[in-house]
């Protein structure tokens, strides 16, 4: 999005600190119009011209009331018209609150605090760092359900199954659903929450200096995702009212009513860097600074830590166990062995869950799709 300075005709950019448009050439500062968007305009389309810069490869979205002869990113007068694209006009936007430098500093700070993160990654070299507005739909929805639940109460010999009934309702007013096909839903959900009290009526000026993605997801799929998210949040809240473990829904009758859905743009920084011929994309919530992604670990450090812990715990157990076992009581020994076995298997299971979750996060961070998501808005390479 390129907006020209009324004084000197240079490109204006959105300044995160002052929340206004500034001209880096003549130094003038312009406030952004906060004219309200009519709430009944739900399907308002807006025609955008898509431009490409032949110098830096950037793809720019420019609306039809403006014209531009140079690239807002590299400053070169080498942008060429690519195509006209009719896009749904966002109703609201949450502007970037974190500057590029703050996003970078937030990532560096988080990486520095990771004990198992290799030094090379802590001192990474930025390949690409781009601010991108991600299209989202925000759903207002009433949700009600009557649930018959099963759970386990008590412990040891007193452990038993108990049945519960809960009927409850709530109203969600900001369930967010990512409307971009290219960005994985799990990745976008990890960026949440966004603080909706800072939402503003949409104004194309906010796009200046940033990239924006387009809404390209099917409405039906987004509705289903919104309902699934509402169901998950609702069930978890209901389960919190039940004093039992291993809670399961045996029978239920959920009802929901989607009252409204609003098209908004939410900000995120995407950092891409390469390490050992692998590309990593770390995301930062452009409003709250929440950093999301998973990076590889230092194998040497992990091996040393595991070996030290293994030796330490084996020594502790080797010292303690003889006091628990009794040479003459075979039954007690068998019981203790079984208990120790169950405890050991439980620990191995917990470790495996942590490992699988970490691997899933790493797969998302190294996925080619997310790298392409940034690259498409960056260059042709």
């Amino acid at each position, binding site marked *: 999005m390129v907006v020209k300075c009324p004084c000197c005709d240079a490109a204006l950019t959105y300044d995160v600190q002052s929340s206004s448009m500034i001209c880096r050439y003549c130094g003038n500062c312009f406030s952004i119009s906060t004219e309200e968007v009519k709430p009944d305009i739900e399907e308002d389309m807006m025609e955008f011209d898509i431009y490409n810069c032949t110098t830096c490869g950037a793809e720019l979205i420019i609306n039809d009331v403006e014209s531009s002869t140079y690239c807002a990113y590299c400053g070169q007068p080498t942008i060429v018209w690519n195509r006209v694209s009719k896009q749904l006009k966002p109703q609201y936007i949450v502007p970037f609150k974190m500057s590029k430098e703050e996003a970078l500093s937030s990532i560096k700070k*988080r990486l520095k605090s*990771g*004990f*198992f*993160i290799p030094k090379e990654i802590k001192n990474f070299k930025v390949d690409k760092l781009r601010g991108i507005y991600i299209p989202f739909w925000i759903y207002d929805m009433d949700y*009600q359900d009557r649930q018959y639940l099963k759970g386990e109460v008590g412990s040891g010999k007193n452990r038993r199954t*108990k*049945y*519960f*009934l809960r*009927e*409850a*309702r*709530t*109203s*969600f*007013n*900001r*369930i967010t659903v990512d409307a971009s096909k290219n960005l994985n839903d799990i990745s976008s*959900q*990890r960026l949440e*929450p966004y603080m909706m009290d800072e939402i503003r009526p949409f104004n194309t000026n906010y796009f200046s200096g940033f990239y924006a993605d387009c809404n390209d997801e099917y409405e039906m799929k987004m509705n289903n995702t919104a309902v699934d998210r*509402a169901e998950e*949040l*609702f069930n978890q*809240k209901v389960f919190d*009212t*039940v*004093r039992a473990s291993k809670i399961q829904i045996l029978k239920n009758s959920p009802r929901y009513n989607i009252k409204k859905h609003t098209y908004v743009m939410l900000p995120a920084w995407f950092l891409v860097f390469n390490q050992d011929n692998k590309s990593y994309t*770390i995301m930062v919530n452009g409003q709250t600074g929440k*950093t999301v992604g*998973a990076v590889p*670990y230092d194998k040497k450090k*992990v091996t040393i*830590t*595991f070996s030290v*812990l*293994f*030796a330490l*715990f*084996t020594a502790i*157990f*080797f010292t303690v*166990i*003889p006091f628990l*076992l009794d*040479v003459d009581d075979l039954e007690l020994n068998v019981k203790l*062995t079984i208990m*120790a*076995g169950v405890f*050991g298997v439980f*620990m*191995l299971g*917990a*470790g495996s869950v*942590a490992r699988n*979750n*970490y691997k899933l*996060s*790493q797969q998302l961070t190294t996925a080619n799709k997310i790298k392409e998501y940034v690259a498409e808005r960056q260059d042709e390479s």
Partner: protein
Amino acid sequence: MIVLTLGLSVFLGFAAAFVITEISIKKSNDLGDSKAEFEDFTDASLVILESKNNVRKKDF
């Protein structure tokens, strides 16, 4: 007895070291895996319309 003690110690020692290492790696290298919660998506609270803690299975 010594074989049993040694066997249990090695098994439990391995399991304890494994779980601590894996959880530490996740905490250290998985950035921002916290999920948004119920309150992040609504200003309303959950209204309980009916609640029973001792339901017989045959009742439903």
